């Protein structure tokens, strides 16, 4: 992985909920050379609006420029930078682990419980755990789980809302 230099930012945007919006946003990131860590999109309480949550690591100038460029897109209605202290931040991860023996199986179940995760699939030589939480929590589970051997990981990227 690349060495991270700047700060992590979470940018929450309200966009038109129509085809091509993600394309326009991602195209702008590529064109302007912004390196996005994650992006997640989903509908909101208004059916014609979607929320796009972007995380980026960068310096203040870069992030300021990214926000301006995002705001400039016709389909982007509102852009705000979330303050982590004042926001609910969640990510969902599905982690498929090797299961070597019965002990490993029970250990995985125990760890999953401690992390308030759920076992969502069981197969003879693998188990899939679902974890929801802040990225830090997921990272912590991953480092623990790596002792079993990770077969596959799927992470959604961050989605977030301001508190209150």
């Amino acid at each position, binding site marked *: 992985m690349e060495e991270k230099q700047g700060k992590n930012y979470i940018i929450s945007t309200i*966009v*038109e909920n129509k085809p*091509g919006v993600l*394309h*326009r946003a991602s*195209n*702008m990131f590529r*064109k302007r050379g912004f390196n996005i860590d994650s992006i997640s999109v989903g509908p909101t309480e208004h059916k014609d609006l979607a929320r796009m949550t972007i995380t980026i690591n960068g310096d203040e*100038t870069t992030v*300021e*420029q990214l926000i*301006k*460029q995002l*705001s*400039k*897109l*016709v*389909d*982007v*209605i509102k852009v705000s930078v979330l303050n982590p202290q004042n926001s609910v931040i969640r990510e969902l991860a599905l982690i498929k682990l090797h299961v070597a023996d019965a002990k490993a199986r029970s250990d995985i179940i125990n760890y999953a419980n401690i992390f308030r995760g759920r076992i969502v699939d069981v197969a003879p030589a693998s188990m899939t755990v679902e974890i929801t939480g802040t990225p830090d929590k997921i990272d912590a589970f991953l480092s623990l789980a790596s002792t079993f051997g990770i077969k596959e990981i799927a992470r959604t990227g961050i989605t977030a809302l301001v508190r209150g």
Partner: protein
Amino acid sequence: MVKMSGSHALIEALHKEKVDVIFGLPGGAIMPVYDVLLDSKIRHILVRHEQSAAHMADGYARASGKVGVCMATSGPGATNLVTGIANAYMDSSPIIAITGQVPRAMIGKDAFQETDIIGITTPITKYNFQPRHASEIPKTVKMAFQIALMGRPGPVVIDLPKDVQMEVADMVFPEKVEIRGYKPNISPHPLQVEKAAELLSKAERPFILAGGGVIISNASQYLQALSELLLAPVATTFMGKGCFPENHPLSLGVIGMHGTLEANKSILEADVLLAVGTRFSDRSTGKIDEFCPDAKIIQIDIDPSEIGKNKAIDVPIVGDANKTLFELYNSLSKRLEKRESSLWSKRIQQIKEEFKDKIKVDQEKDLVPQKVLKELREILPVDTIVTTEVGQNQMWASLYFKVYKPRTFISSGGLGTMGFGFPAAIGVKVARPDVPVVDIAGDGSFTMTANSLATSVAENIPVTVVILNNSMLGMVAQWQRLFYNRRYSAVELGEYPNFVKLAEAFGAQGIRVGSIDEFKKAVKQALISDVTTVIDVPIPPEENVFPMIPAGKGLREIIY
């Protein structure tokens, strides 16, 4: 509510936007629109290559301030427009490109002449549309015009599947549409204006750098008033050329890579720099770290993303140049008395005097670009609109063809598109049939879109082309002389084509001149001609454009 086809709705909507001309070329996927166009009052100008249609629309837009419209079929028709769209995007020119598309059911199937023009043009348009139902067309056109013109102008694409053009639906033509994601901030924040006024009123050596935004927002009169009140010299960017009269005592001409010595030298002495409608492009500033490192900088721009993009700014002001300069002037006129001169204005006159005629011009030869362009300026009326091609011809025009009015100098600045000038001149002439239009060209650039001669003759749009003919891709050759040990790689064009015969083959007038007197005579002849005139001016093949700041160097490292 009225029932009509998508094509009828498109033409009706264009009509409602007061479109009187479309530059285009038909093909399979746009035929329903062309069929309806036949019965409309909108003039269609048939091009010979779609790239020229986009440049014509661009020239039309820049000369008039209105939206220029071009049209092409799907696939290659649409992709041929791409260079022209990118050009309009870089120079913030409001054009609308209408493209045909394969029927809805065929989209994504790699159908004949299908291309993803929405995907292709997303990074080079302000916005693009692909209506999936005919009933969306009236609103789409309304939005397209609003987006193209509002705030910082730019190109918009409307991609119309063929079956949408044919579909009949109930149409509602809105008077205005609300675009919730695009609301440019026109009025500057009063506090920021006050801050700027405060800074400028205390400045000892205020300097104004004016860009294309001043022309777009028609802010020239306030710029001049402000400059005279502050006794601040004005340098323009290349895109800003014409926004301040270049014969004004406070004018320093164009700044940048091939800017004037006086502009590039004196801007470095400024203590407060007022930059308006400029994006601090690398061609204007040279090495950005060495550009006015000690000056306090005020930047006015309607596009917030341009503020601080390339250069850190002390006082940012988001707003329309016209409105902002007006308010800044009002604020300053309360603080300052108008004076005849200042230490700084005297210093500026001294710098101008010092660098006057510093650039060596061949005294023995007659037909050198510097002299040719000075003569051209002498002959052409002040209102003449000049376009240029790209390369040495363009930079000589910038240096030696002085411009006194906004919208009378039109050139491809950001993209640097060879082949722009001639079709743009045709578009300009359509917008302004009342004034002479002249394309200052190079032989390489002109050859790229010379097929537009057919359009200019067939459609009776007479313009003048002055080819500074060095039988070279001159600017590339200059770089090879200066930075590649004179190793000429792929720059020698030879004496092809014979431009007189080429012009005549298209039914235009061709004149090759052998002296400056013949040149003057030819221009006068062109000005009264009913057909387009191509004046072929042989110039020395190895003439350099100076001054020059080598790429990546700071303004101090200017060579001449």
